């Protein structure tokens, strides 16, 4: 046994390290010789090492578990189990595979030494033990182990961090909704969890010249220096690693479909990178590239969907607007068609009725529901149906969009009750897709036709009436001018007289015709005012007095003083007319009576004569124009045939009534009423 050696000044730092270590290193010594154990104990203790001794190698394993030594000194030759065996046992146990094992042996031969190393021992020390040497070896061994452990721990910690970081990155990738957030997340994860010094991600902005723009970063980035590296990585599509000062920069390109589109640059301490880690980072980058592309695709798809949605929205709105416009147009159309007082009838190409407005209902007497779908023939007299069908067929092929129906002929419609009426119509056609729709606009012109007839008749009658005095005038003057008669002869005088009278009659006739036309057309406004009936009677009597005297008729007048709202001249004209007629027809030396009475809300005027009277079947028609009473009454030369018609017109304009009562042979009484107020 050797003496304890004082610790040498060597490895002060080692001591520091050792003493720095919180856990004091434990040495387990296994030797069956207690003397050796004691020596070792004495030797090692001053170095601040905790020494455990074990005499019985059988307890080795248990002791190992309990003590958990940092180093084991084994004797080779021991009675029950050899150190070699023990070493083997230890080395087989993965828990203790790292444990430094030193053999103590007296043996020297190569064979033993070989065995020693074969079973995995770290070293051997030969007996006798040289103190300092042993100590040095032990301390060195411990030191190395500690460092290795530290490294391993550091590595573990780093691996741990890496795994955490990768896991977090994967989570981030899975949950990513947004590219920018994803990249920021990744950068942050790598710097905060992965504990890299800085991370930045850039995208290729332009290809020629190649420029890369940073889109996310974390930590302190000194990018400008690293841009070249990034560019290189992108250009070559390979990972680029460079050392910068005491740090390492790794640039991994983001690749899609063999084309690099970006770069991730990770900057950190050297011990944070090794091949395995870089592989992991490359894998992460690949995943990141995939993730970015997916997000973009999704974004694109989303954008597209948004666009499609917008387009659909627009389309929908447009359709709604169109529908609205259509509804409005429909309402407008219906409004126009329904209020039209003329008939508007639409038919399809089979000439069946598809539209029948209220005007048509009124004119034809059918309800729309009764005629829809029926052929148009229903509305025509039998004899016209075939020809009409032909005309519509011809019209179908004509270039005109519309034309008047019955241009060269009269057309007639047939009402529900079977009556026919004259009509004016025009037809138009409209092509809607494949179908042609025809629309007929029709007016019932019976009234107009009647008016036309009446007008023609009137013109005809007037023309005749005018020619009558004209014939006398023309004939008389012609004869007088011929020189065939002596101017002062009786015949000449007679002709002159006839011409003069006839001229006057012509003048009166024309005046009366104009008068009655103007009154009836409403062009002459009755200028009504408050008048006293008595005054009107007085005036009429004054006018008619000379005629009465000439005819030897006595006027018997009963006045009534009551105010009426009338046109005085016209009422006087009426009274004069009636009186004049009465005087003409009265028997000579008889009376003509004029009376006015108040009845309820009106004034009744009465003109009575006892002339020859009027046949009962003529009592109404004498108020018509140019109606003569009978043949025996050769037209009174000074009568125009319009007098009573004019009276009737005037009274009607005053909202009154005029009529006659008469007995043939006894006389006639003419009445008319004027409402009061």
């Amino acid at each position, binding site marked *: 046994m050797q003496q304890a050696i004082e610790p040498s000044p060597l490895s002060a730092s080692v001591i520091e390290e050792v003493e720095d270590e919180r856990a004091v290193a434990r040495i387990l010594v296994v030797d069956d010789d207690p003397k050796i154990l004691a020596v070792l104990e004495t030797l090692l203790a001053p170095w601040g090492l905790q020494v455990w001794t074990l005499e019985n190698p059988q307890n080795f394993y248990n002791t190992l578990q309990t003590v958990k030594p940092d180093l084991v000194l084994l004797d080779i030759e021991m009675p029950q189990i050899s150190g070699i065996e023990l070493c083997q046992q230890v080395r087989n146990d993965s828990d203790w595979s790292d444990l430094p094992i030193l053999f103590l042996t007296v043996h020297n031969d190569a064979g033993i030494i070989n065995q020693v190393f074969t079973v995995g021992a770290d070293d051997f020390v030969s007996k006798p033990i040289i103190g300092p040497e042993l100590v040095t070896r032990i301390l060195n061994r411990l030191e190395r182990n500690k460092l290795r452990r530290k490294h391993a721990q550091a590595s573990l910690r780093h691996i741990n961090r890496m795994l955490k970081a990768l896991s977090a990155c994967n989570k981030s990738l899975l949950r990513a909704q947004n590219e920018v957030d994803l990249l920021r997340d990744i950068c942050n994860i790598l710097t905060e969890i992965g504990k890299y010094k800085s991370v930045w991600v850039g995208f290729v902005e332009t290809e020629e010249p190649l420029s890369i723009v940073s889109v996310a970063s974390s930590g302190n980035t000194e990018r400008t220096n690293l841009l070249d590296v990034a560019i290189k990585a992108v250009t070559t599509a390979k990972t680029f690693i460079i050392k910068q000062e005491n740090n390492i920069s790794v640039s991994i390109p983001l690749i899609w479909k063999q084309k690099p589109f970006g770069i991730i640059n990770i900057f950190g301490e050297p011990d944070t990178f090794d091949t395995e880690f870089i592989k992991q980072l490359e894998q992460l980058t690949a995943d990141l590239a995939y993730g970015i592309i997916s997000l973009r695709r999704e974004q694109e798809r989303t954008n597209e969907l948004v666009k499609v949605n917008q387009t659909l929205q627009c389309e929908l709105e447009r359709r709604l607007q169109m529908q609205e416009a259509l509804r409005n147009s429909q309402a407008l159309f219906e409004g126009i068609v329904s209020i039209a007082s003329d008939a508007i009838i639409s038919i399809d190409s089979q000439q069946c009725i598809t539209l029948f407005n209220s005007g048509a209902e009124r004119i034809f007497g059918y309800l729309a529901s009764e005629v829809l779908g029926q052929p148009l023939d229903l509305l025509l007299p039998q004899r016209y149906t075939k020809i009409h069908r032909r005309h519509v067929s011809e019209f179908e092929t004509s270039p005109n969009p519309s034309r008047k129906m019955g241009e060269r002929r009269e057309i007639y419609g047939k009402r529900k009750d079977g009556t026919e009426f004259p009509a004016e119509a025009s037809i138009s056609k409209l092509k809607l897709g494949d179908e042609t729709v025809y629309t007929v606009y029709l007016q019932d012109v019976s009234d107009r036709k009647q008016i036309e007839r009446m007008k023609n008749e009137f013109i005809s009658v007037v023309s005749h009436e005018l*020619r*009558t005095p004209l*014939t006398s005038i023309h004939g008389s003057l012609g004869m007088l001018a011929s020189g065939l008669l002596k101017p002062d002869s009786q015949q000449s005088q007679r*002709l002159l007289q006839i011409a003069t*009278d006839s001229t006057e009659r012509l003048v009166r006739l024309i005046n009366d015709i104009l008068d009655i036309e103007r009154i009836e057309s409403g062009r002459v406004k009755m200028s009504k005012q408050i008048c006293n009936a008595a005054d009107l009677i007085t005036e009429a009597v004054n006018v008619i007095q000379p005629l009465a005297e000439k005819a030897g008729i006595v006027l018997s007048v009963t006045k009534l003083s009551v105010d009426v709202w009338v046109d005085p001249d016209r009422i006087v004209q009426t009274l004069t007319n009636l009186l004049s007629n009465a005087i003409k027809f009265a028997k000579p030396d008889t009376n003509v009576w004029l009376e006015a009475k108040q009845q309820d809300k009106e004034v009744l005027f009465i003109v009575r004569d006892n002339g020859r009277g009027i046949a009962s079947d003529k009592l109404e028609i004498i108020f018509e124009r140019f109606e003569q009473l009978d*043949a025996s009454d050769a037209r009174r030369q000074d009568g125009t045939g319009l007098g009573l018609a004019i009276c009737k017109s005037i009274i009607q304009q005053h909202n009154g009534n005029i009529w006659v009562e008469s007995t043939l042979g006894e006389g006639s009484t003419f009445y008319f009423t004027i409402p009061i107020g």
Partner: protein
Amino acid sequence: MKRILVVDNEEYIQEVTKICLETVAGWEVITAGSGMECVSKALSELPDAILLDVMMPDIDGIATFEKLQANSVTQNIPVILLTAKIQASDRRRYAEQGIKDAIAKPFNPTELANQVSAILGWKEISNEC
């Protein structure tokens, strides 16, 4: 001398026509104021021709003509219508019925006699001064 029956419901026209024919042609003129009077006078006077107004209140000229035709005494008396309105279709109709012709009113007073002669195939009238 020819005897003419002039029929018109207007007295003045009767008179003027009478004076024209008497003065220009020297014919004897009798007058009637209605269709009925025409028939009765035709029967009683047997004129050589009848100048007949169409528009008369009781029975018109056409109906009067038919009455004359219906009577064997008068059916051969030539009839000329005097009328305010003549259309081509009317002339055809009159001709078909047997009416000789129609003269429009107002007529030319100095020419009337010649017109009548021409229609009836009588010798031309020369105007006396």
